[in-house]
């Protein structure tokens, strides 16, 4: 007898008729991605979205749900949906009584203004509480549904992964705001109107669980769209908290979910079932109207898509991420082009190319931007799994190892640029080409047809100009006043003086994959009152052939003279050397042989010898940099090496960078000259504390 009673009670609980628990049913779809086919024939049997529509219509008639909600990423990247700017997808929702769709990251590809337009005249709400235009929500933050005595509020939160089109960001103050702040602002008011609150979220499991455990007003979280359902590298559909609340992730996209809830002291999940889309016979006026409209969209797409963009293509042209990245590099003359994977759906073009071929292949309609990034950042960017790069091979750009401190010109779509911004806190200036990948592919197929070349090595052979500026200046004025009888205190100057100096250098570098030409004017000038302490003007022309990573042959011409004539003389010392340039991660060295000759004031005989140049730079602790520079030339006038001369210039220094341009450095310089002519030495050592400006500019 007791057994029968227990079974009876459990049945009552199951049916929700005991203790006044109301049973609420909701329908959900997620990640639909506007996957309409483009073929009209047999569409009611084969078009996935129509099959889903039929299944939804059948479910609506049998289950009587309180609401049908889409959890986001519905509009993109389906070809027809993209072509219609989401209109056909919004019609789908409107015709099949979808109460709301959560705006998710992929949906933003359609464009904010286009989404706003979609809202007009349709009953389906676009849901997002945290996409804000200044202080106002751009879309509907929540909707409220009632069944019997139960009132449920459904709040939508967009994931922060969304990217607004750069044009819209420039024109409007739209942004994805902090979801916590938004919830805190909305929930107290909403709780007064509703018995229960369900959060529709595009956030990750971690964020959802944290919200559900901390925000007491929330009764249930249903995530989808941007939420993949990954928890500790496993796909999880449901997580229950100790307080009985649940987080659900609905990631399946080829059907719909039926969620049955029991509304009592809280919202408890009674059942969650996924139903795959299948053929159902639907004979309703709304369904037939939608099928008609869909057919019109498909026909329109076919009519417009049939426009011939290019004809008579020689051979087949492979259209994929890498080929289009090569095209970007060609078109923008950048050193590196990056694309986020799957920006292009791989296709092979042959003979005649139509507009629909391009639209179907291109999966990224953001504008192409060009910008410059430091080598260190570039390395991190191209190391990402999701990135396809043209111009970077085995850590090299144009055959040279990527240098952390050098700037590289990069082009990408806005999506790639946003990826870059995620890696750095710094603002990266960009130039907008205002062209999309489709525009560029179209222009190329109608013009140069770079895409058909297949071989892109010529891009590495392009010459580029880079200018590196290094300015180091100081000024010292000391005023001394003393009586005739007073002795100068130890360590203090005897008299008033003014001392100033500069050490400025500009490197003009023209280079390509194999050749590098560097022209360097260098001034090292220092004077105290009327006396010159340093008065050097140097011009260097260096040619390097990029034979390998480590060893590169070079030729160097260097001319040293004075900046200001001294005693009406302008001595000029020439040095011509050839040798090997060695390049390592922190160390560059040159070992060469040649001659050194004073050609003017007075003209001397040439000295033949070897030069050794070391340039060691070691960055540490983020902002510090240690440098060791050695420039030495050992020469002789005879073959027996008797009349030998030695000249060496050593600089060692430590610098601290305040920002990208400005640094404070302490340097110790030591100059040594030995001449057999006099059998005497000249030594000069110097300690300098200076404020330096260093900047690199790339012109093309």
């Amino acid at each position: 007898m007791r057994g029968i009673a227990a079974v009876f009670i459990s049945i009552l609980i199951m049916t929700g008729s005991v203790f006044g628990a109301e049973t609420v049913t909701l329908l959900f779809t997620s990640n639909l991605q506007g996957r309409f086919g483009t073929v009209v024939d047999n569409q009611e049997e084969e078009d996935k979205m129509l099959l889903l529509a039929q299944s939804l219509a059948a479910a609506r008639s049998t289950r009587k749900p309180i609401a049908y909600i889409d959890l986001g990423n519905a509009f993109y990247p389906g070809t027809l949906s993209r072509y219609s700017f989401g209109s056909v997808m919004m019609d789908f929702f409107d015709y099949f009584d979808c109460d709301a769709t959560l705006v998710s990251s992929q949906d933003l590809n359609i464009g904010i203004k286009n989404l706003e337009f979609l809202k007009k005249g349709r009953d389906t709400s676009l849901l997002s509480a945290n996409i804000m235009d200044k202080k106002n929500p751009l879309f509907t933050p929540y909707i409220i549904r009632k069944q019997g005595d139960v009132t449920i509020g459904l709040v939508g939160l967009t994931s922060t992964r969304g990217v607004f089109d750069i044009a819209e960001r420039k024109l409007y103050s739209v942004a994805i705001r902090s979801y916590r702040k938004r919830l805190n602002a909305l929930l107290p008011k909403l709780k007064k109107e509703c018995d229960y609150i369900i959060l529709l979220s595009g956030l990750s499991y971690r964020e959802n669980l944290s919200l559900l455990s901390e925000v007491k007003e929330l009764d249930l979280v249903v995530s989808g769209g941007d939420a993949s359902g990954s928890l500790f590298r496993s796909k999880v559909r449901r997580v229950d908290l100790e307080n009985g609340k649940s987080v659900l992730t609905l990631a399946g996209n080829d059907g719909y979910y039926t969620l049955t809830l029991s509304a009592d002291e809280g919202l408890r999940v009674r059942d969650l079932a996924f139903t795959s889309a299948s053929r159902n016979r639907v004979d309703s006026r709304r369904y037939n109207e939608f099928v008609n409209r869909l057919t019109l969209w498909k026909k329109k797409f076919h009519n417009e898509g049939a426009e011939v963009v290019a004809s008579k293509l020689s051979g087949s042209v492979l259209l994929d991420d890498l080929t289009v990245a090569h095209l970007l590099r060609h078109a923008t003359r950048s050193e590196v082009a990056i694309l986020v994977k799957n920006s292009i759906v791989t296709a092979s073009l042959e003979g005649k190319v139509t507009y629909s071929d391009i639209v179907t292949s291109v999966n990224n309609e953001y504008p192409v931007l060009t910008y410059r990034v430091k080598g260190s950042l570039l390395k991190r960017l191209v190391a990402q799994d999701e990135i396809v790069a043209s111009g970077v091979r085995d850590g090299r750009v144009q055959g040279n190892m990527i240098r952390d401190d050098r700037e590289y010109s990069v082009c990408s779509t806005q999506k790639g640029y946003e990826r870059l911004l995620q890696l750095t806190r710094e603002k990266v200036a960009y130039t907008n080409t205002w062209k999309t990948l489709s525009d560029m592919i179209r222009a190329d197929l109608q013009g140069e047809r770079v895409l058909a070349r297949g071989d892109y090595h010529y891009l590495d052979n392009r010459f580029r100009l880079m200018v590196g500026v290094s300015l180091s200046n100081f000024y010292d004025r000391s005023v001394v006043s003393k009586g005739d009888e007073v002795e100068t205190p130890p360590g203090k100057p005897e008299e008033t003086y003014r001392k100033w100096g500069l050490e400025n250098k500009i490197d003009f570098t023209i280079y390509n994959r194999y050749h590098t030409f560097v022209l360097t004017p260098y001034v090292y000038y220092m004077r105290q009152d009327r006396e010159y302490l340093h008065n050097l003007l140097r011009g260097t022309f260096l040619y390097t052939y990029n034979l390998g990573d480590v060893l590169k042959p070079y030729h160097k011409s260097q001319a040293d003279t004075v900046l200001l004539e001294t005693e009406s003389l302008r001595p000029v010392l020439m040095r011509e050397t050839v040798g090997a340039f060695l390049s390592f991660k922190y160390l560059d060295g040159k070992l060469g042989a040649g001659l050194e000759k004073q050609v003017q004031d007075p003209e001397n005989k040439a000295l033949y010898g070897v030069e050794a140049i070391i340039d060691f730079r070691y960055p540490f602790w983020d902002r510090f940099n240690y440098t060791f520079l050695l420039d030495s030339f050992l020469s002789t006038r005879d073959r027996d090496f008797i009349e030998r001369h030695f000249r060496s210039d050593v600089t060692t220094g430590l610098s601290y960078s305040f920002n990208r341009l400005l640094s404070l450095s302490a340097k110790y310089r030591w100059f040594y000259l030995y001449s057999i002519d006099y059998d005497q030495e000249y030594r000069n050592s110097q300690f300098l504390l200076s404020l330096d400006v260093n900047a690199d500019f790339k012109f093309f």
Partner: protein
Amino acid sequence: MKIQVSVLCIPVICAIMFASCATMSGNGGDGVAEQLKAQNRVMKNNLTQVQRENDILKEENIQCKASVDQLKSKVKMLESEMASMKKKYESDIALLEKKNENLQEKNRILDQESTEKIKELTKLNNKLEERLTGKIEELNKAIRKQEEEFNRQRQEMESRFTEKEKEYKQRIAELEKQVKQYQSDMESMKSRLQAAEDRVEKLQSVVNDKESIIKSLKEKLDAAKNEAAAASDKKQGE
């Protein structure tokens, strides 16, 4: 001093170069041109969307118009059909009205005839009813008599049955007494039978003993006879 100024100019030139280069790098452009380009892109997208949606709605509108035209022509056709039907209806109505009048006349005559017939039938019916009522009353009386007779017979039968029942009950009691008597007799007979059986057994054993004695005596007798015969034979021989 002139030279000094020219030397100082170098960093200034460099700074200007730096500044100019810095602006060359740009920041996506905050200028009016960039704003206009951004606006152009947004407007272009919006316009394309609106145009495409408009084309679809136009197409739908054309379809709707075509179906409206079809419906209009159908309406016209139906209207003309209605007119001809109306005509036919009117002539039919006139014809029917005539027919109706005729029928009404016929109906009136039939009505009259039927009224008379009804009167006759009513009379006949009344007579029959009266006869039927008399018959029913007679039958009721007969039934009542039968019922009374039946009740009397039943009461008699019941009283007879009661007496018989009493009698049978007495006989049953007597028979039960006799059965009990027979049962006690049977019990005493059983004990006597048992005693008789015991005695039979004892007598049987005595008989058996006697039989064995007789048997032995017989044997002795036979032997004696044999001896006597032998002796007589011997005597005869002798």
